[in-house]
């Protein structure tokens, strides 16, 4: 298809919106009518045509607007992008991975021409064209990680692997579900996940780490995660929580359909060839409740999942106070009929 990029905002007037195309391909995260943490990993080797799984780095109608929002966040707070000194090589690995993937997967949008270490990159949607020397930082306007991730949707954690652990030693984080890169940078896998309830006791992180340490080059993996956000606010950062937190209290029975968003993260994991690091992109997809319930299966299932979610998870995910109002709204879309297995929609919007 020919990509149309939305004119939209993720702050103040919140003009973000999903087309029917974007709703149909939304990564609904619940494969059954209940939810609990699991090591829900699978291989990231494409997926159904047009789905968000199809390409290595999905580009959608929100691309240009998301990159504008990222630039604003970084201008306000440069600490959202940091790389410890030993991580520069991993940044080049990441730049190569994204440029090669995007130019192969979206040849109409991105071009990469390589002649030895002389590289020529063209990003048509953002109007960027640069010639640079691979592995020479002085030839790019930013460090390699920052350069390419200012042009790629999703947050990026670049992890060093040593001592049988993964270390959050670099990243760009502007669309996060309320965690701080500036605070967590330098932590290992168990430390940065320390605040997550229930999952440690279930052994989730021990098993997940074991899986991730063994990810091989050319064999990426993926999983979905989710939370709730009021308004289509990408930058739900702890840094700005004192500014956006109050928006959670602005939900009413009248506006909940359009102001309450399900926030889904497509998390992928790629081994990096030179550094042996692991890159962990966290791509955020937002959908308003009123759009989500247009898919009957999703409306039914979301009601059941939210209703039965343990209090600890609803609290950690930050919507315990609004849960009763969510259930009042969602129950209207749950007729008690059974739902089919898996995440895919039971009908498509035309």
């Amino acid at each position, binding site marked *: 298809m020919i990509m149309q990029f939305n004119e939209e905002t993720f702050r103040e007037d919140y003009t973000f919106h999903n087309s029917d195309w974007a709703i149909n391909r939304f990564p609904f995260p619940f494969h059954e009518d209940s939810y609990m943490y699991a090591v829900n990993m699978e291989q990231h080797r494409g997926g159904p045509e047009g789905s968000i799984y199809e390409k290595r780095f999905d580009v959608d109608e929100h691309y240009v607007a998301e990159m504008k929002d990222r630039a604003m966040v970084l201008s306000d707070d440069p600490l959202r992008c940091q790389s410890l000194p030993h991580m520069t090589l991993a940044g080049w690995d990441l730049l190569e991975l994204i440029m090669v993937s995007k130019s192969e997967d979206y040849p109409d949008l991105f071009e990469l021409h390589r002649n030895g270490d002389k590289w020529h990159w063209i990003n048509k949607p953002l109007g960027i064209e640069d010639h640079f020397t691979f592995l020479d930082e002085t030839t790019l306007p930013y460090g390699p990680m920052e350069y390419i991730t200012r042009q790629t949707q999703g947050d990026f954690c670049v992890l060093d692997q040593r001592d049988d652990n993964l270390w959050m030693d670099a990243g760009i984080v502007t669309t996060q579900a309320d965690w*701080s890169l500036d*605070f*967590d940078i330098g932590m290992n896998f168990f*430390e940065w996940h320390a*605040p997550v309830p229930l999952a*440690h006791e279930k052994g989730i992180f021990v098993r997940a780490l074991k899986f991730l340490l063994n990810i091989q080059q050319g064999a990426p993996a993926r999983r979905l995660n989710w939370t709730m956000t009021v308004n289509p606010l990408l930058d739900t950062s*702890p840094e700005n929580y004192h500014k956006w937190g109050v928006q959670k209290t602005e939900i009413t029975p009248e506006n909940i359909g359009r102001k309450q968003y399900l926030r889904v993260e497509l998390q992928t994991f790629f081994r990096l060839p030179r550094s042996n690091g692991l890159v962990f992109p966290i791509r955020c997809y937002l959908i308003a409740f009123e759009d989500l319930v247009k898919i009957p299966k999703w409306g039914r299932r979301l009601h059941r999942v939210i209703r039965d979610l343990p209090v600890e998870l609803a609290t950690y995910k930050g919507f315990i106070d609004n849960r009763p109002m969510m259930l009042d709204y969602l129950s209207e879309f749950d007729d008690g009929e059974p739902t089919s297995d898996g995440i895919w929609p039971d009908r498509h919007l035309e």
Partner: protein
Amino acid sequence: MSKFNFPESIMSRPVYGTLEPRSGKAHLMVADAQGAEAIIGLSKADSGLLSKTHIIYIPKGTGDTYTGKLEKLGAAQLYVGPSYEAAKTRLQRTLAGAHMGLQVYLSGTEGLMGQAMLEATNAGIPHTAIQTEHRGSVARRMQCVHCKGITEDVMTDPFVCSHCGLSLFVRDHYSRRLAAFQGVCIDAEDPGNVPASVELYK
């Protein structure tokens, strides 16, 4: 004794032990306030240890309660400084000149141990190779996640950020790189509704 048993917490929160003498030709002990008791304990456990030891000590409100006792230990070097900030460059210089195998012992408040550990890890010593023993106050060194300012010696939850003035709740989430716990605005979702402060661990 001034030891406090911290309740079990999340995995980023530091866990402290009991200092034990290790073999080695050079030893560095950094302590504040009641942390001196742990150093005195080490000297009793191994009478030959202190002659190979550099002690950096900050009395921090304990006056000369411990300084006389430390002077009698026969340390190779004993420095008594007025504040951690004042002692920091000496600590950095000592670590820069250290040889492989230096044994590091930290004791006292969490803020002191965290900051000294950061200097030691910056000098290339793995954090897992550094011994720690908590003594004295349970006050915490807190970073405001909003303005990034550090507030030292926080004793209550919530507390007021000494930089931006927001009321912050005290998390157990801890960063070794910042040597600080995280403080987060407590009334973001209900501005002005700040619960009464309670003393930590009371």
